């Protein structure tokens, strides 16, 4: 077979096609002009023109998380690449597969402080899973295929390919993707059989067990989620999920205790604290989840399954660490369980559930029902009721609204919930919703936002207009950076330094300026009508929900506190103030 020769830029587009890429989110510039020329000449790969490179990465993240495919970004050199850094870091923290193509000045100018030059591989080294600088067109197709392989396998993550302009013009041979194993990168996906048996034994003999699932189950795929559900149901044990794991287990099922962590459910956190066997799958013992480490599930044996060996024993010492893919590990555990048919301690389990039901009866999401002001929780309850039977995808920005969304929007299946968990990136939700809507044109895609976060990437309303994407932006507007204000109230004597946003725009007029529909609700009686109108409008809609300015997000594990020291509401006081001295220094 003769090898096809072509220019670097054409090779790139061909490689994207061979990798099954149908859409690229990007922004042009001098260094990537040859690529844009190649895009112009073909119809296989669609380009979505964003308004800021950070948004291109978040859009690709939304696309990737809602489809399970690799998201692709194309930006120019210098500022194009540096603007993408926040998105890349976000994708690294949340394990989202991204391939980001960055333009670079021609090879002979690298290091000369050329116009729009930045040391992209240097800058992105700590915020990518891996990066490449292509200095020879003969390496180009291999590098692209390798980048996709690295991005989507093992613990997924972002990969940058830096492309000097001369390489894009140079002619070279194109090689299609091959199945040749990588010479050094070999993620371990098959779990150790003996460890799996040890884990099953522990699980079977538990008296107060809990499953603690995370985003790793979703990243493993729908099959892993189905296996997780099968295993949890087979045991009859309670199950909690992390912020990133929501949807891996159906929220409506009675064995689901809800999300755990700082703003997680009272029953989930108490069950974590009191459990005797913890089964962590695809979750990473993040500080938002564990609370104070020396009081974290103190009397438990811990099993931890993770595809990333560096996640094991990182924050919390576990008894049975298992390296492997969540799906494969669950399959292996189910097999052992089904062949051994262990007898579980039913009376102990019944007692455990009785205890859990007691915690549940505290009704931790309770809030003051009132007609005087729109409570943010009320707005989300109504939004959930109106969208639960639709083909709905939810994205969020970061802050109080994000936590309320995690509490009040329920997810019955994976890939329906996109939020910035690890990095906590304000401005994530709108571009992410854009990416989701591109992937799912007929679906209802809602960005639950705060009025501060939304302004961080508000320019993307222009992208939504250009591509007629009917994304719904649901702003819980309290005129404060709510979570900042809440922490200032709890820890800094209510001195609200710079957390109040003066001179907010009129979001209705702002929407109209971008060719979108703007709606507003200021009274509880208007909430349902506005939600109805929003959902029935087949265009981009921005909803300005004027909510209670001073509402705080509860329940809450204060910084430096343990799972069983949750605050249930504003009247729930701890001795010596809500936050300990050690807690004050924590974020």
């Amino acid at each position, binding site marked *: 077979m003769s090898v096809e020769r072509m220019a670097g830029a054409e090779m790139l587009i061909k490689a994207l096609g061979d990798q099954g890429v149908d859409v690229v989110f990007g922004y042009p510039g001098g260094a990537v002009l040859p690529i844009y020329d190649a895009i112009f000449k073909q119809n296989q790969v669609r380009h979505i023109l964003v308004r800021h490179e950070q948004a291109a990465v978040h859009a690709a993240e939304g696309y990737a998380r809602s489809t399970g495919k690799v998201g692709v970004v194309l930006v120019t050199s210098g500022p194009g690449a540096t603007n993408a850094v926040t998105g890349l870091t976000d994708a690294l923290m949340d394990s989202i597969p991204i391939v980001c193509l960055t333009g670079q000045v021609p090879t002979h100018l690298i290091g000369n402080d050329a116009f729009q030059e930045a040391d992209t591989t*240097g800058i992105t080294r*700590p915020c990518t*899973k891996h990066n490449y600088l292509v200095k020879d067109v003969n390496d180009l197709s291999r590098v692209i295929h390798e980048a996709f392989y*690295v991005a989507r396998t093992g613990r997924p993550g972002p990969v940058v390919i830096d492309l000097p302009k001369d390489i894009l013009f140079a002619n070279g041979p194109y090689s299609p993707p091959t199945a040749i194993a990588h*010479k*050094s*990168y070999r993620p371990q996906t098959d779990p150790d059989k003996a460890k799996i048996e040890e884990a099953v034994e522990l699980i079977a003999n538990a008296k107060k067990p809990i499953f603690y699932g995370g985003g790793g189950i979703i990243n493993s795929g729908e099959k892993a989620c189905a296996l997780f559900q099968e295993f949890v149901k087979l045991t009859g044990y309670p199950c909690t999920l992390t912020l990133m794991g929501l949807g891996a287990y159906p929220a409506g099922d009675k064995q689901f205790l809800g999300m755990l962590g700082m703003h997680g459910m009272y029953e989930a956190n108490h069950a974590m604290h009191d459990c005797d066997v913890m089964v962590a799958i695809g979750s990473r013992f993040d500080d938002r989840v564990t609370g104070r480490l020396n009081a974290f599930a103190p009397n438990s044996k811990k099993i931890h399954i993770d595809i*990333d*060996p*560096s996640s094991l024993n990182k924050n919390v010492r576990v008894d049975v660490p298992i390296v492997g893919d969540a799906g494969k590990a669950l399959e292996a555990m189910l097999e052992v369980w089904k062949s051994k048919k262990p007898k579980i301690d039913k009376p102990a389990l019944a007692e455990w559930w009785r205890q859990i039901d007691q915690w549940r009866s505290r009704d931790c999401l309770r809030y003051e029902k009132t007609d005087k002001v729109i409570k943010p929780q009320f707005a989300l309850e109504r939004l959930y009721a109106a969208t639960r039977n639709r083909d709905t995808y939810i994205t969020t920005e970061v802050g109080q609204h994000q936590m309320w969304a995690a509490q009040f929007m329920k997810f019955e299946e994976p890939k329906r919930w996109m939020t910035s968990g690890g990095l906590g990136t304000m401005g994530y939700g709108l571009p992410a919703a854009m990416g989701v809507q591109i992937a799912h044109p007929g679906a209802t895609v809602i960005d639950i936002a705060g009025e501060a976060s939304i302004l961080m990437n508000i320019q993307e309303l222009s992208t939504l207009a250009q591509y007629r994407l009917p994304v719904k932006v649901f702003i819980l507007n309290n005129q404060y950076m709510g979570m900042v204000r809440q922490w200032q109230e709890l820890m800094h004597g209510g001195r609200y330094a710079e957390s109040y946003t003066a001179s907010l725009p009129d979001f209705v007029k702002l929407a109209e300026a971008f060719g979108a529909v703007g709606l507003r609700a200021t009274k509880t009686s208007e909430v349902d009508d506005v939600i109805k109108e929003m959902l029935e409008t087949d265009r981009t809609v921005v909803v300005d929900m004027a909510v209670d300015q001073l509402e705080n997000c509860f329940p809450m594990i204060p910084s430096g506190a343990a799972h069983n020291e949750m605050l249930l509401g504003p009247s729930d006081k701890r001795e010596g103030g809500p936050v300990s001295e050690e807690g004050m220094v924590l974020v």
Partner: protein
Amino acid sequence: MSAIEKHTIAVLVDNEPGVLARVIGLFSGRGYNIESLTVAEVDRANNLSRITVVTSGTPMIIVQIKAQLSRLVPIHTVRDLTDEGPHVERELALIKVVGTGEKRIESLRLADIFRARVVDSTIDSFVFEMTGSTEKLNAFINLMEPLGLADVSRTGVVAISRGSAKF
């Protein structure tokens, strides 16, 4: 708190641009210690370099360091020589001592005892070359201090396992 342990870790990596920056960036970004680090190509045919890094931390941190290193794409193998058992560690130093008279003679005498070689000499200076364990080098350098120690250049530790086992 667990005790701090010192470990010598050998890492086989692709000899490509940026690989050392990845390793060093990992240590600095995650707050791990580097007591010494050496790197050089060891296998031209397969384009491999070997990094020897001496680090310290609690046992949990040492395990983390190895797991984090293994995660880097161009890294082939990570070996904890301290954990794996008997191994040889050597360091090379070039030590410049400036002086005349009795001090000069004493430095030469001590160099002989320590089996250091003279690789450069002027009428008022010596450059000694010395190979050995870090402790031996430290001891010799300390002795040179009052005798006119002027300059030291050290390679950091290189290490290899004992016996017939390959890397």
